[in-house]
Protein backbone atom coordinates (compact mmCIF):
# COMPACT_ATOMS: atom_id res chain seq x y z
CA UNK A 1 0.00 0.00 0.00
CA UNK A 2 2.81 2.38 0.90
CA UNK A 3 4.55 1.79 -2.44
CA UNK A 4 1.37 2.69 -4.35
CA UNK A 5 0.68 5.67 -2.09
CA UNK A 6 4.17 7.07 -2.72
CA UNK A 7 4.00 6.42 -6.44
CA UNK A 8 0.60 8.12 -6.85
CA UNK A 9 1.53 11.08 -4.67
CA UNK A 10 4.62 11.63 -6.78
CA UNK A 11 2.62 11.24 -9.99
CA UNK A 12 0.43 14.18 -8.96
CA UNK A 13 3.47 16.41 -8.93
CA UNK A 14 5.32 15.22 -12.03
CA UNK A 15 2.25 16.18 -14.03
CA UNK A 16 0.58 19.59 -13.69
CA UNK A 17 -2.50 18.06 -12.02
CA UNK A 18 -1.25 18.40 -8.45
CA UNK A 19 -0.11 21.97 -8.96
CA UNK A 20 -3.33 22.99 -10.69
CA UNK A 21 -5.44 21.56 -7.90
CA UNK A 22 -3.34 23.26 -5.23
CA UNK A 23 -3.40 26.54 -7.15
CA UNK A 24 -7.19 26.49 -7.44
CA UNK A 25 -7.57 25.80 -3.74
CA UNK A 26 -5.11 28.53 -2.81
CA UNK A 27 -6.65 31.14 -5.09
CA UNK A 28 -10.20 30.58 -3.91
CA UNK A 29 -9.48 30.12 -0.22
CA UNK A 30 -7.19 33.17 -0.37
CA UNK A 31 -9.92 35.17 -2.05
CA UNK A 32 -12.53 34.18 0.53
CA UNK A 33 -10.09 34.84 3.36
CA UNK A 34 -9.24 38.34 2.15
CA UNK A 35 -12.95 39.05 1.63
CA UNK A 36 -13.68 37.83 5.14
CA UNK A 37 -10.72 39.70 6.61
CA UNK A 38 -11.52 43.01 4.99
CA UNK A 39 -15.09 42.78 6.25
CA UNK A 40 -13.87 42.35 9.77
CA UNK A 41 -15.31 38.89 10.25
CA UNK A 42 -12.80 37.01 12.41
CA UNK A 43 -13.59 33.36 11.68
CA UNK A 44 -12.18 30.98 9.00
CA UNK A 45 -15.42 29.07 9.11
CA UNK A 46 -16.59 31.37 6.35
CA UNK A 47 -13.76 30.14 4.12
CA UNK A 48 -14.66 26.52 4.78
CA UNK A 49 -18.33 26.97 4.05
CA UNK A 50 -17.56 28.73 0.77
CA UNK A 51 -15.08 26.03 -0.29
CA UNK A 52 -17.79 23.35 -0.44
CA UNK A 53 -18.62 24.07 -4.08
CA UNK A 54 -14.95 24.39 -5.07
CA UNK A 55 -14.30 20.97 -3.57
CA UNK A 56 -17.03 19.42 -5.66
CA UNK A 57 -15.43 20.84 -8.80
CA UNK A 58 -11.87 19.94 -7.99
CA UNK A 59 -12.23 16.34 -6.78
CA UNK A 60 -13.06 14.86 -10.22
CA UNK A 61 -9.76 16.24 -11.48
CA UNK A 62 -7.93 14.56 -8.61
CA UNK A 63 -9.52 11.17 -9.15
CA UNK A 64 -10.01 10.91 -12.91
CA UNK A 65 -6.74 9.22 -13.76
CA UNK A 66 -6.26 7.19 -10.58
CA UNK A 67 -7.53 3.87 -11.92
CA UNK A 68 -8.37 4.50 -15.57
CA UNK A 69 -4.86 5.48 -16.63
CA UNK A 70 -3.39 2.27 -15.18
CA UNK A 71 -5.80 0.28 -17.22
CA UNK A 72 -5.18 2.19 -20.41
CA UNK A 73 -1.42 1.82 -20.14
CA UNK A 74 -1.85 -1.78 -18.96
CA UNK A 75 0.12 -1.11 -15.79
CA UNK A 76 -2.69 -2.80 -13.91
CA UNK A 77 -1.14 -6.06 -15.11
CA UNK A 78 1.87 -5.55 -12.90
CA UNK A 79 -0.20 -4.32 -9.96
CA UNK A 80 -2.63 -7.23 -10.10
CA UNK A 81 0.05 -9.88 -10.59
CA UNK A 82 2.14 -8.62 -7.67
CA UNK A 83 1.71 -10.12 -4.23
CA UNK A 84 -0.49 -7.27 -2.97
CA UNK A 85 -4.14 -7.28 -2.01
CA UNK A 86 -6.63 -5.46 -4.21
CA UNK A 87 -7.74 -3.45 -1.19
CA UNK A 88 -4.24 -2.13 -0.58
CA UNK A 89 -3.99 -1.00 -4.22
CA UNK A 90 -7.24 0.94 -3.85
CA UNK A 91 -6.38 2.33 -0.42
CA UNK A 92 -2.91 3.43 -1.56
CA UNK A 93 -4.46 5.44 -4.37
CA UNK A 94 -7.24 6.78 -2.16
CA UNK A 95 -4.87 8.12 0.47
CA UNK A 96 -2.59 9.66 -2.15
CA UNK A 97 -5.52 11.67 -3.52
CA UNK A 98 -6.64 12.54 -0.01
CA UNK A 99 -3.13 13.74 0.85
CA UNK A 100 -3.08 16.15 -2.11
CA UNK A 101 -6.56 17.29 -1.12
CA UNK A 102 -5.44 17.90 2.47
CA UNK A 103 -2.41 19.80 1.22
CA UNK A 104 -4.79 22.14 -0.55
CA UNK A 105 -6.24 23.13 2.82
CA UNK A 106 -2.98 23.46 4.69
CA UNK A 107 -3.07 27.20 4.04
CA UNK A 108 -6.16 27.61 6.22
CA UNK A 109 -3.83 26.94 9.13
CA UNK A 110 -1.88 30.05 8.12
CA UNK A 111 -5.14 32.03 7.96
CA UNK A 112 -5.99 30.81 11.42
CA UNK A 113 -2.58 31.85 12.75
CA UNK A 114 -2.90 35.29 11.17
CA UNK A 115 -6.29 35.71 12.83
CA UNK A 116 -4.95 34.60 16.18
CA UNK A 117 -2.91 37.83 16.32
CA UNK A 118 -6.09 39.84 16.38
CA UNK A 119 -8.66 37.79 18.25
CA UNK A 120 -8.74 34.84 20.59
CA UNK A 121 -9.89 31.84 18.58
CA UNK A 122 -11.73 28.64 19.27
CA UNK A 123 -9.35 26.05 17.87
CA UNK A 124 -11.86 23.27 18.36
CA UNK A 125 -14.12 24.83 15.76
CA UNK A 126 -11.17 25.05 13.40
CA UNK A 127 -10.34 21.39 13.94
CA UNK A 128 -14.00 20.56 13.37
CA UNK A 129 -13.86 22.46 10.09
CA UNK A 130 -10.77 20.59 8.93
CA UNK A 131 -12.25 17.22 9.90
CA UNK A 132 -15.45 18.07 8.06
CA UNK A 133 -13.50 19.06 4.96
CA UNK A 134 -11.45 15.86 5.05
CA UNK A 135 -14.58 13.75 5.46
CA UNK A 136 -16.31 15.51 2.59
CA UNK A 137 -13.21 15.20 0.40
CA UNK A 138 -12.67 11.57 1.39
CA UNK A 139 -16.18 10.51 0.47
CA UNK A 140 -16.03 12.39 -2.85
CA UNK A 141 -12.61 10.93 -3.66
CA UNK A 142 -13.94 7.43 -2.96
CA UNK A 143 -16.82 8.06 -5.38
CA UNK A 144 -14.43 9.39 -8.02
CA UNK A 145 -12.05 6.49 -7.52
CA UNK A 146 -14.86 4.02 -8.06
CA UNK A 147 -15.97 5.74 -11.25
CA UNK A 148 -12.38 5.84 -12.46
CA UNK A 149 -12.14 2.08 -11.90
CA UNK A 150 -15.08 1.55 -14.24
CA UNK A 151 -13.53 3.04 -17.35
CA UNK A 152 -10.33 3.23 -19.35
CA UNK A 153 -10.89 6.85 -20.25
CA UNK A 154 -9.87 9.69 -17.98
CA UNK A 155 -12.40 11.96 -19.61
CA UNK A 156 -15.31 9.61 -18.98
CA UNK A 157 -14.19 9.25 -15.38
CA UNK A 158 -13.91 13.00 -14.93
CA UNK A 159 -17.27 13.76 -16.53
CA UNK A 160 -19.00 10.98 -14.59
CA UNK A 161 -17.61 12.16 -11.27
CA UNK A 162 -18.36 15.74 -12.17
CA UNK A 163 -21.99 14.85 -12.90
CA UNK A 164 -22.32 13.27 -9.49
CA UNK A 165 -20.74 16.33 -7.88
CA UNK A 166 -23.24 18.56 -9.65
CA UNK A 167 -26.05 16.35 -8.49
CA UNK A 168 -24.81 16.57 -4.91
CA UNK A 169 -24.54 20.34 -5.21
CA UNK A 170 -28.01 20.79 -6.66
CA UNK A 171 -29.75 18.17 -4.59
CA UNK A 172 -30.94 20.51 -1.88
CA UNK A 173 -32.52 22.98 -4.23
CA UNK A 174 -34.01 20.20 -6.37
CA UNK A 175 -35.50 18.51 -3.33
CA UNK A 176 -37.22 21.67 -2.20
CA UNK A 177 -39.04 21.98 -5.53
CA UNK A 178 -40.58 18.53 -5.18
CA UNK A 179 -43.64 18.53 -2.99
CA UNK A 180 -43.51 14.90 -1.93
CA UNK A 181 -42.40 14.88 1.67
CA UNK A 182 -40.73 11.45 1.47
CA UNK A 183 -38.41 12.58 -1.32
CA UNK A 184 -37.62 15.86 0.38
CA UNK A 185 -36.84 14.00 3.58
CA UNK A 186 -34.60 11.47 1.81
CA UNK A 187 -32.78 14.24 -0.03
CA UNK A 188 -32.23 16.10 3.20
CA UNK A 189 -30.88 12.98 4.78
CA UNK A 190 -28.27 12.33 2.10
CA UNK A 191 -27.55 16.03 1.65
CA UNK A 192 -23.76 16.44 1.65
CA UNK A 193 -23.98 20.17 2.13
CA UNK A 194 -26.34 19.92 5.09
CA UNK A 195 -24.07 17.49 6.87
CA UNK A 196 -20.94 19.38 5.93
CA UNK A 197 -22.38 22.68 7.16
CA UNK A 198 -23.19 21.10 10.49
CA UNK A 199 -19.46 20.42 10.89
CA UNK A 200 -18.55 23.88 9.73
CA UNK A 201 -20.93 25.55 12.12
CA UNK A 202 -19.03 23.87 14.92
CA UNK A 203 -21.37 21.00 15.75
CA UNK A 204 -19.60 17.68 15.90
CA UNK A 205 -22.35 15.17 15.23
CA UNK A 206 -21.34 11.50 15.17
CA UNK A 207 -24.08 10.61 12.72
CA UNK A 208 -22.47 12.93 10.17
CA UNK A 209 -19.05 11.44 10.82
CA UNK A 210 -20.46 7.95 10.31
CA UNK A 211 -22.32 9.07 7.18
CA UNK A 212 -19.21 10.34 5.39
CA UNK A 213 -17.03 7.44 6.52
CA UNK A 214 -19.68 4.99 5.33
CA UNK A 215 -19.98 6.65 1.93
CA UNK A 216 -16.21 6.45 1.51
CA UNK A 217 -16.09 2.83 2.69
CA UNK A 218 -18.93 1.73 0.41
CA UNK A 219 -17.39 3.25 -2.71
CA UNK A 220 -13.90 1.97 -1.91
CA UNK A 221 -15.41 -1.46 -1.47
CA UNK A 222 -17.20 -1.14 -4.81
CA UNK A 223 -13.92 -0.10 -6.44
CA UNK A 224 -12.25 -3.26 -5.09
CA UNK A 225 -15.15 -5.33 -6.39
CA UNK A 226 -14.91 -3.77 -9.83
CA UNK A 227 -11.22 -4.75 -10.00
CA UNK A 228 -12.12 -8.25 -8.90
CA UNK A 229 -14.94 -8.46 -11.42
CA UNK A 230 -12.63 -7.57 -14.28
CA UNK A 231 -10.70 -10.81 -13.73
CA UNK A 232 -13.83 -12.87 -14.22
CA UNK A 233 -15.27 -11.00 -17.15
Amino acid at each position, binding site marked *: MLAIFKRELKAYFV*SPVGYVVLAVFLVFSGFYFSYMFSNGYPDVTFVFSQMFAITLFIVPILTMRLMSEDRRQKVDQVLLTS*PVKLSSIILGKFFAALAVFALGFANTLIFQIILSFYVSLNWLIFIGNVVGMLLLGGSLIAIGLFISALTESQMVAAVGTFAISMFILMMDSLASTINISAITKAAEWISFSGRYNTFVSGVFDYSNLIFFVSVAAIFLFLAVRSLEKKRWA
Partner: protein
Amino acid sequence: MIEVTNLSKRYGNHLAVSDVSFTVKDGEILGFLGPNGAGKSTIMNILTGYLSPTVGTVKIDGFDILESPNEAKKRIGYLPEQPPLYLDMTVKEYLCFIYDLKKVNLPKHPHIFEICRLVKIEDVYDRLIKNLSKGYRQRVGIAQALVGNPDVLILDEPTVGLDPKQIIEIRNLINHLGKTHTIILSSHILSEIQTVCERVIVINKGKLIADDTAENLSKHFSKDHSLNARIMGPSKDILKLLSSINGVSTVSCLGSKEKDSYDFNIEPVESADVRRDVFQRLAEHNWPLLGLNTNELSLEQIFLRITDESDKDEDFDIGNIKPSKEAKK
Protein backbone atom coordinates in the same frame (compact mmCIF):
# COMPACT_ATOMS: atom_id res chain seq x y z
CA MET B 1 6.65 -26.42 -10.24
CA ILE B 2 3.76 -25.23 -12.40
CA GLU B 3 0.69 -27.41 -12.63
CA VAL B 4 -2.13 -26.47 -14.93
CA THR B 5 -5.20 -28.67 -15.02
CA ASN B 6 -8.23 -28.47 -17.30
CA LEU B 7 -7.94 -24.76 -17.85
CA SER B 8 -10.79 -23.11 -19.76
CA LYS B 9 -11.66 -19.48 -20.23
CA ARG B 10 -14.92 -18.34 -21.71
CA TYR B 11 -15.82 -14.80 -22.74
CA GLY B 12 -19.55 -14.92 -23.31
CA ASN B 13 -19.96 -17.37 -26.18
CA HIS B 14 -16.34 -17.15 -27.14
CA LEU B 15 -14.18 -19.97 -25.82
CA ALA B 16 -10.70 -18.44 -25.64
CA VAL B 17 -9.00 -21.35 -23.87
CA SER B 18 -10.38 -24.85 -23.97
CA ASP B 19 -9.36 -27.58 -21.54
CA VAL B 20 -5.62 -27.01 -21.43
CA SER B 21 -3.49 -29.08 -19.05
CA PHE B 22 0.27 -29.26 -18.66
CA THR B 23 2.99 -29.25 -16.05
CA VAL B 24 6.34 -27.51 -16.08
CA LYS B 25 9.22 -28.96 -14.10
CA ASP B 26 11.79 -27.00 -12.12
CA GLY B 27 14.33 -25.34 -14.32
CA GLU B 28 12.55 -26.11 -17.56
CA ILE B 29 12.25 -23.61 -20.40
CA LEU B 30 8.87 -24.06 -22.02
CA GLY B 31 7.80 -22.40 -25.23
CA PHE B 32 4.23 -21.47 -26.09
CA LEU B 33 3.74 -21.47 -29.79
CA GLY B 34 0.66 -20.45 -31.67
CA PRO B 35 -0.68 -18.03 -34.24
CA ASN B 36 -1.98 -14.63 -33.19
CA GLY B 37 -5.19 -14.92 -31.23
CA ALA B 38 -4.55 -18.55 -30.29
CA GLY B 39 -4.94 -17.90 -26.58
CA LYS B 40 -1.29 -17.71 -25.52
CA SER B 41 -1.62 -14.42 -23.73
CA THR B 42 -4.89 -15.44 -22.11
CA ILE B 43 -3.25 -18.56 -20.67
CA MET B 44 -0.33 -16.49 -19.39
CA ASN B 45 -2.69 -13.96 -17.83
CA ILE B 46 -4.43 -16.81 -16.05
CA LEU B 47 -1.14 -18.35 -14.88
CA THR B 48 -0.13 -15.07 -13.28
CA GLY B 49 -3.48 -14.43 -11.65
CA TYR B 50 -4.41 -11.41 -13.75
CA LEU B 51 -7.44 -13.25 -15.11
CA SER B 52 -9.40 -15.99 -13.46
CA PRO B 53 -10.13 -19.22 -15.32
CA THR B 54 -13.73 -20.20 -15.99
CA VAL B 55 -12.79 -23.80 -15.19
CA GLY B 56 -9.57 -25.35 -13.99
CA THR B 57 -6.75 -24.74 -11.54
CA VAL B 58 -3.25 -23.31 -11.65
CA LYS B 59 -0.71 -24.25 -9.00
CA ILE B 60 2.66 -22.55 -8.66
CA ASP B 61 4.99 -24.54 -6.43
CA GLY B 62 1.92 -26.14 -4.85
CA PHE B 63 0.16 -22.82 -4.17
CA ASP B 64 -3.15 -22.31 -5.94
CA ILE B 65 -3.20 -18.94 -7.72
CA LEU B 66 -6.77 -18.25 -6.57
CA GLU B 67 -6.67 -19.70 -3.08
CA SER B 68 -3.30 -18.39 -1.92
CA PRO B 69 -2.58 -15.69 -4.48
CA ASN B 70 0.11 -13.89 -2.51
CA GLU B 71 2.25 -16.98 -2.03
CA ALA B 72 1.87 -17.94 -5.68
CA LYS B 73 2.44 -14.45 -7.06
CA LYS B 74 5.60 -14.01 -4.99
CA ARG B 75 7.13 -16.78 -7.06
CA ILE B 76 6.28 -15.30 -10.45
CA GLY B 77 7.87 -12.59 -12.53
CA TYR B 78 5.62 -11.61 -15.40
CA LEU B 79 6.31 -9.67 -18.55
CA PRO B 80 2.95 -9.06 -20.26
CA GLU B 81 2.58 -8.54 -23.98
CA GLN B 82 2.78 -4.78 -23.52
CA PRO B 83 5.37 -3.91 -20.86
CA PRO B 84 3.46 -2.44 -17.88
CA LEU B 85 5.42 0.77 -17.45
CA TYR B 86 4.62 4.07 -15.78
CA LEU B 87 5.80 6.48 -18.43
CA ASP B 88 6.15 9.37 -16.00
CA MET B 89 8.81 7.62 -13.92
CA THR B 90 12.51 7.15 -14.48
CA VAL B 91 13.83 3.61 -14.84
CA LYS B 92 15.30 3.84 -11.35
CA GLU B 93 12.08 5.12 -9.75
CA TYR B 94 10.04 2.51 -11.56
CA LEU B 95 12.20 -0.43 -10.52
CA CYS B 96 12.32 0.86 -6.93
CA PHE B 97 8.52 1.10 -7.02
CA ILE B 98 8.25 -2.50 -8.25
CA TYR B 99 10.71 -3.53 -5.54
CA ASP B 100 8.55 -1.91 -2.85
CA LEU B 101 5.36 -3.24 -4.41
CA LYS B 102 6.60 -6.82 -4.37
CA LYS B 103 7.97 -6.41 -0.82
CA VAL B 104 11.31 -7.92 -1.77
CA ASN B 105 13.76 -8.85 0.97
CA LEU B 106 17.01 -8.44 -0.95
CA PRO B 107 19.38 -5.47 -0.54
CA LYS B 108 17.55 -2.84 -2.59
CA HIS B 109 20.03 -0.90 -4.68
CA PRO B 110 22.59 -3.66 -5.34
CA HIS B 111 19.74 -5.96 -6.41
CA ILE B 112 18.19 -3.42 -8.79
CA PHE B 113 21.54 -2.47 -10.23
CA GLU B 114 22.42 -6.12 -10.79
CA ILE B 115 19.22 -6.54 -12.81
CA CYS B 116 19.94 -3.42 -14.84
CA ARG B 117 23.38 -4.76 -15.65
CA LEU B 118 21.89 -8.10 -16.69
CA VAL B 119 19.39 -6.61 -19.14
CA LYS B 120 21.80 -3.82 -20.14
CA ILE B 121 19.81 -0.75 -19.17
CA GLU B 122 22.39 0.91 -16.88
CA ASP B 123 22.90 3.72 -19.35
CA VAL B 124 19.22 4.75 -19.23
CA TYR B 125 18.96 4.26 -15.47
CA ASP B 126 18.08 7.90 -14.76
CA ARG B 127 15.97 8.60 -17.82
CA LEU B 128 12.21 8.93 -18.02
CA ILE B 129 10.60 5.79 -19.42
CA LYS B 130 8.48 8.06 -21.64
CA ASN B 131 11.62 8.96 -23.59
CA LEU B 132 12.91 5.43 -24.10
CA SER B 133 12.74 3.52 -27.37
CA LYS B 134 10.62 0.40 -27.77
CA GLY B 135 13.62 -1.89 -27.30
CA TYR B 136 14.64 -0.23 -24.06
CA ARG B 137 11.07 -0.24 -22.78
CA GLN B 138 10.87 -3.94 -23.49
CA ARG B 139 14.07 -4.49 -21.52
CA VAL B 140 12.79 -2.41 -18.60
CA GLY B 141 9.75 -4.70 -18.75
CA ILE B 142 12.01 -7.73 -18.47
CA ALA B 143 13.92 -6.05 -15.62
CA GLN B 144 10.64 -5.52 -13.82
CA ALA B 145 9.87 -9.24 -14.06
CA LEU B 146 13.26 -10.07 -12.56
CA VAL B 147 12.85 -7.88 -9.47
CA GLY B 148 12.76 -10.06 -6.38
CA ASN B 149 14.43 -12.90 -8.24
CA PRO B 150 11.28 -15.03 -8.61
CA ASP B 151 11.63 -18.76 -9.38
CA VAL B 152 9.22 -18.65 -12.28
CA LEU B 153 9.44 -16.25 -15.18
CA ILE B 154 6.53 -15.87 -17.56
CA LEU B 155 7.48 -13.84 -20.61
CA ASP B 156 4.90 -12.97 -23.22
CA GLU B 157 6.72 -12.38 -26.51
CA PRO B 158 9.88 -11.00 -24.88
CA THR B 159 11.67 -10.08 -28.11
CA VAL B 160 8.93 -8.13 -29.85
CA GLY B 161 10.13 -4.75 -31.05
CA LEU B 162 13.82 -5.43 -30.58
CA ASP B 163 16.46 -5.18 -33.27
CA PRO B 164 18.32 -8.35 -34.35
CA LYS B 165 21.28 -7.69 -32.08
CA GLN B 166 19.05 -7.11 -29.09
CA ILE B 167 17.05 -10.23 -29.91
CA ILE B 168 20.21 -12.31 -29.73
CA GLU B 169 21.14 -10.64 -26.44
CA ILE B 170 17.72 -11.32 -24.95
CA ARG B 171 17.83 -14.94 -26.10
CA ASN B 172 21.20 -15.35 -24.48
CA LEU B 173 19.83 -13.74 -21.35
CA ILE B 174 16.89 -16.17 -21.32
CA ASN B 175 19.24 -19.09 -21.78
CA HIS B 176 21.35 -17.77 -18.93
CA LEU B 177 18.31 -17.27 -16.69
CA GLY B 178 17.05 -20.71 -17.63
CA LYS B 179 19.86 -22.26 -15.60
CA THR B 180 18.36 -20.96 -12.37
CA HIS B 181 14.71 -20.26 -13.24
CA THR B 182 11.66 -22.00 -14.60
CA ILE B 183 10.65 -20.08 -17.69
CA ILE B 184 7.57 -20.02 -19.86
CA LEU B 185 7.82 -17.85 -22.92
CA SER B 186 5.49 -17.35 -25.80
CA SER B 187 6.21 -16.40 -29.34
CA HIS B 188 4.92 -16.74 -32.81
CA ILE B 189 8.47 -16.60 -34.08
CA LEU B 190 9.42 -20.20 -34.42
CA SER B 191 13.17 -19.92 -34.68
CA GLU B 192 13.15 -18.19 -31.34
CA ILE B 193 11.34 -21.05 -29.64
CA GLN B 194 13.61 -23.50 -31.40
CA THR B 195 16.81 -21.93 -30.13
CA VAL B 196 15.70 -21.21 -26.58
CA CYS B 197 13.17 -23.82 -25.47
CA GLU B 198 13.61 -27.41 -24.44
CA ARG B 199 9.94 -28.16 -24.70
CA VAL B 200 7.26 -26.73 -26.95
CA ILE B 201 3.53 -26.49 -26.46
CA VAL B 202 1.57 -25.63 -29.56
CA ILE B 203 -1.73 -23.86 -29.07
CA ASN B 204 -4.27 -23.18 -31.73
CA LYS B 205 -7.72 -21.70 -31.21
CA GLY B 206 -7.49 -22.12 -27.47
CA LYS B 207 -6.62 -25.81 -27.62
CA LEU B 208 -3.40 -27.54 -26.76
CA ILE B 209 -2.54 -29.48 -29.89
CA ALA B 210 1.03 -30.60 -29.26
CA ASP B 211 3.33 -30.90 -26.26
CA ASP B 212 6.79 -32.27 -26.94
CA THR B 213 10.45 -31.41 -27.38
CA ALA B 214 11.33 -29.48 -30.50
CA GLU B 215 13.32 -32.44 -31.95
CA ASN B 216 10.55 -34.94 -31.30
CA LEU B 217 8.02 -32.74 -33.00
CA SER B 218 10.33 -32.45 -35.93
CA LYS B 219 10.92 -36.23 -36.07
CA HIS B 220 7.29 -37.04 -35.71
CA PHE B 221 6.30 -35.04 -38.70
CA SER B 222 9.21 -35.71 -40.98
CA LYS B 223 8.68 -39.43 -41.63
CA ASP B 224 8.02 -38.64 -45.24
CA HIS B 225 11.24 -37.03 -46.35
CA SER B 226 10.69 -35.37 -49.64
CA LEU B 227 13.63 -34.45 -51.86
CA ASN B 228 14.52 -31.28 -53.62
CA ALA B 229 16.58 -31.71 -56.77
CA ARG B 230 18.07 -29.21 -59.22
CA ILE B 231 18.64 -30.79 -62.61
CA MET B 232 19.96 -29.41 -65.88
CA GLY B 233 17.94 -30.53 -68.90
CA PRO B 234 14.50 -30.42 -70.53
CA SER B 235 11.91 -30.13 -67.79
CA LYS B 236 9.14 -32.26 -69.33
CA ASP B 237 11.37 -35.21 -70.09
CA ILE B 238 12.96 -35.10 -66.65
CA LEU B 239 9.52 -35.02 -65.06
CA LYS B 240 8.52 -38.13 -67.02
CA LEU B 241 11.73 -39.92 -66.11
CA LEU B 242 11.52 -39.14 -62.42
CA SER B 243 7.91 -40.26 -62.23
CA SER B 244 8.87 -43.62 -63.71
CA ILE B 245 11.43 -44.36 -60.98
CA ASN B 246 10.44 -47.11 -58.58
CA GLY B 247 9.40 -45.76 -55.20
CA VAL B 248 8.55 -42.25 -56.32
CA SER B 249 4.97 -41.28 -55.64
CA THR B 250 4.70 -37.73 -56.97
CA VAL B 251 7.02 -35.30 -58.70
CA SER B 252 6.41 -31.65 -59.24
CA CYS B 253 8.39 -29.04 -61.04
CA LEU B 254 9.15 -25.97 -58.92
CA GLY B 255 10.35 -23.83 -61.81
CA SER B 256 13.73 -22.61 -62.92
CA LYS B 257 16.01 -20.77 -60.53
CA GLU B 258 19.29 -21.20 -62.38
CA LYS B 259 19.92 -20.92 -66.12
CA ASP B 260 18.98 -24.07 -68.11
CA SER B 261 18.09 -25.99 -64.96
CA TYR B 262 14.88 -26.82 -63.14
CA ASP B 263 14.03 -27.55 -59.54
CA PHE B 264 11.89 -30.57 -58.72
CA ASN B 265 10.18 -31.80 -55.61
CA ILE B 266 10.20 -35.59 -55.34
CA GLU B 267 7.85 -37.26 -52.89
CA PRO B 268 8.85 -40.90 -52.35
CA VAL B 269 6.41 -43.51 -51.10
CA GLU B 270 6.82 -44.18 -47.42
CA SER B 271 10.32 -45.13 -46.20
CA ALA B 272 11.71 -45.56 -49.72
CA ASP B 273 15.15 -44.12 -50.43
CA VAL B 274 15.20 -43.14 -54.07
CA ARG B 275 18.33 -40.98 -54.12
CA ARG B 276 20.62 -43.55 -55.83
CA ASP B 277 18.07 -44.37 -58.51
CA VAL B 278 17.50 -40.71 -59.21
CA PHE B 279 21.20 -40.13 -59.67
CA GLN B 280 21.79 -43.17 -61.91
CA ARG B 281 18.79 -42.63 -64.17
CA LEU B 282 19.70 -38.97 -64.68
CA ALA B 283 23.30 -39.98 -65.43
CA GLU B 284 22.09 -42.42 -68.11
CA HIS B 285 20.45 -39.52 -69.93
CA ASN B 286 23.36 -37.22 -69.28
CA TRP B 287 21.23 -34.71 -67.41
CA PRO B 288 23.54 -33.35 -64.71
CA LEU B 289 22.22 -33.40 -61.16
CA LEU B 290 23.29 -30.04 -59.73
CA GLY B 291 21.85 -30.46 -56.27
CA LEU B 292 19.91 -32.91 -54.17
CA ASN B 293 18.82 -32.40 -50.60
CA THR B 294 16.25 -33.85 -48.26
CA ASN B 295 13.57 -31.57 -46.97
CA GLU B 296 14.00 -31.56 -43.19
CA LEU B 297 10.82 -30.13 -41.81
CA SER B 298 11.57 -26.96 -39.96
CA LEU B 299 9.59 -26.12 -36.88
CA GLU B 300 7.86 -23.63 -39.09
CA GLN B 301 6.45 -26.27 -41.39
CA ILE B 302 5.56 -28.52 -38.49
CA PHE B 303 3.73 -25.66 -36.94
CA LEU B 304 1.78 -25.01 -40.12
CA ARG B 305 0.94 -28.68 -40.45
CA ILE B 306 -0.20 -29.08 -36.89
CA THR B 307 -2.35 -26.00 -36.98
CA ASP B 308 -3.78 -27.06 -40.34
CA GLU B 309 -4.64 -30.49 -39.00
CA SER B 310 -6.31 -29.06 -35.95
CA ASP B 311 -8.24 -26.64 -38.13
CA LYS B 312 -9.72 -29.51 -40.13
CA ASP B 313 -11.31 -31.28 -37.18
CA GLU B 314 -12.39 -28.21 -35.32
CA ASP B 315 -15.91 -28.13 -34.03
CA PHE B 316 -16.07 -24.56 -32.89
CA ASP B 317 -15.18 -21.21 -34.27
CA ILE B 318 -13.54 -18.68 -32.04
CA GLY B 319 -13.62 -15.87 -34.48
CA ASN B 320 -10.37 -16.31 -36.37
CA ILE B 321 -10.53 -15.30 -39.97
CA LYS B 322 -10.21 -18.40 -42.06
CA PRO B 323 -10.65 -19.15 -45.75
CA SER B 324 -14.10 -20.25 -46.79
CA LYS B 325 -14.76 -23.89 -47.68
CA GLU B 326 -14.70 -23.14 -51.41
CA ALA B 327 -11.35 -21.44 -51.23
CA LYS B 328 -9.89 -24.45 -49.45
CA LYS B 329 -10.96 -26.78 -52.23
